[in-house]
């Protein structure tokens, strides 16, 4: 792996109370690449993804060991507001606020201090263009974000995430609630986005991981139900010549 490293997990473990959910995971997220986390349900891939912007902080009883680094800095020492500005997130179900399209995209920039309406308008347009949604909504930015189709809503959420100009975008099964056409649009969009953003995506859909990602991480629970990283490498290698037989079993549909 010759690419520059944006985020890095070092010997990272996560506990819910006494229960170990992630077991000593170390992995590098290369800059301007798409890294996919795959694995069966309950393997901790979403939990792991949420460690990168500390969304797990919200859950009572969660403790961690090891480190997650962003540009070499320990994220747990960073101001969480600042961290989440740099590490944006898109969720499984499209979740636009019940506000106008404009206000949805402007939400983040307003939080971080942009109040001027014309500045916001510039950001909104740039973000919607970045999310390939501008042409579909430019004539009616006052329309509620909830009135869009599922695929459009998800692109609105992507626009909302990139409006604060993050370095990293975390995507937690971003297309699992969408139909195949909307899914392909999101995948196409990811390909464009990776020119400017580092992307980490959790997906249940192995073909999606194979299609969109540059690197793939395979996670699996061990006998204590803790999530372990089994293999991480270039996607084309994982999908043609995985080095671990468990990876092979999983990607070829012979798991379990």
């Amino acid at each position: 792996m010759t690419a520059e490293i944006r985020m890095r997990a070092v010997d990272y473990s996560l506990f819910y109370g006494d229960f170990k959910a992630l077991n000593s995971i170390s992995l590098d997220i290369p800059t301007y690449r798409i890294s996919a986390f795959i694995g069966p349900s309950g393997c901790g891939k979403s939990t792991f993804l949420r460690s990168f912007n500390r969304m797990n902080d919200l859950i009572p009883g969660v403790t961690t060991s090891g480190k997650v680094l962003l540009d070499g800095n320990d994220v747990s020492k960073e101001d969480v507001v600042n961290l989440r500005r740099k590490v944006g997130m898109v969720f499984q179900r499209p979740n636009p606020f019940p506000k106008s399209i404009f206000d949805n995209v402007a939400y983040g920039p307003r939080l971080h201090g942009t109040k001027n309406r014309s500045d916001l308008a510039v950001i909104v347009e740039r973000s919607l263009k970045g999310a390939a949604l501008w042409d579909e909504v430019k004539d009616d930015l006052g329309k509620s974000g909830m009135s869009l189709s599922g695929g459009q809503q998800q692109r609105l959420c992507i626009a909302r995430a990139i409006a604060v100009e993050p370095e990293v975008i975390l995507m937690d099964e971003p297309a699992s609630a969408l139909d195949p056409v909307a899914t392909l649009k999101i995948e196409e969009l990811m390909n464009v986005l990776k020119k400017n953003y580092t992307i980490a995506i959790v997906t249940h859909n192995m073909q999606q991981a194979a299609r969109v990602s540059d690197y793939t991480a395979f996670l699996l629970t061990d006998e204590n139900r803790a999530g372990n990283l089994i293999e991480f490498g270039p996607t084309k290698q994982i999908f043609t010549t995985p080095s671990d037989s468990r990876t092979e079993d999983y990607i070829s549909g012979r798991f379990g």
Partner: protein
Amino acid sequence: MTRESFDRELQDVKRKLFQVTGEVRKNLTASVKYLDNRDMQGASMIIESDEMVNLKCLEIEERCLNIIATQQPVATDLRLLFSILQITTEVERIGDYAKGIARISQKIGPGKLVKPLVDIPRMEEIAGLMLDDAIRAFTEDDEQAARKIPARDMQIDVLYNQVHRVLLTFTMEKPTNIEEIMMLDWVAHNIERVGARVVNICERVIFTVTGVSVDLN
């Protein structure tokens, strides 16, 4: 193990390829034998049989494409399918070489050959055994065996050079039979090509097992 029907289909296609290879192998040996025996009827049977071989190869290809299109195979499965496709092509070409020998046999026509066949049957024997071993290595995922087979291709090449030189001297001794001599040379060439195709099959076996493409020629 999930995906049982997928696995069954894969194994079935693999078995089909094994069967077709068996037919091709039979045709190859028979083609040289009929040439030696001056058996015109046998030669035309080989030509007919090769039609069937070609159809069966097409069927294998089609089934591979179906599996790829509907099952999205990855990793070992994908490499296996890719190799089946490639090996099918090799086998189909070996079948064509056998058919070519049968055609030559017909062209030469009945009657005694200009010289008794000595090295050509030996070449065929080696090539045939190589093919047997290669396809067995394939069905058994035996990478080690596949690595050993190509060395034997050298013997075929040596014999081919020998045949070639002998036939060359014959052209000087019996200039009236130049056409037949050249056709016999072509037979030897066909068998030499069979050896090269078998080496290709061995490469595919290694690729299937390890995922590494090698060049053993």
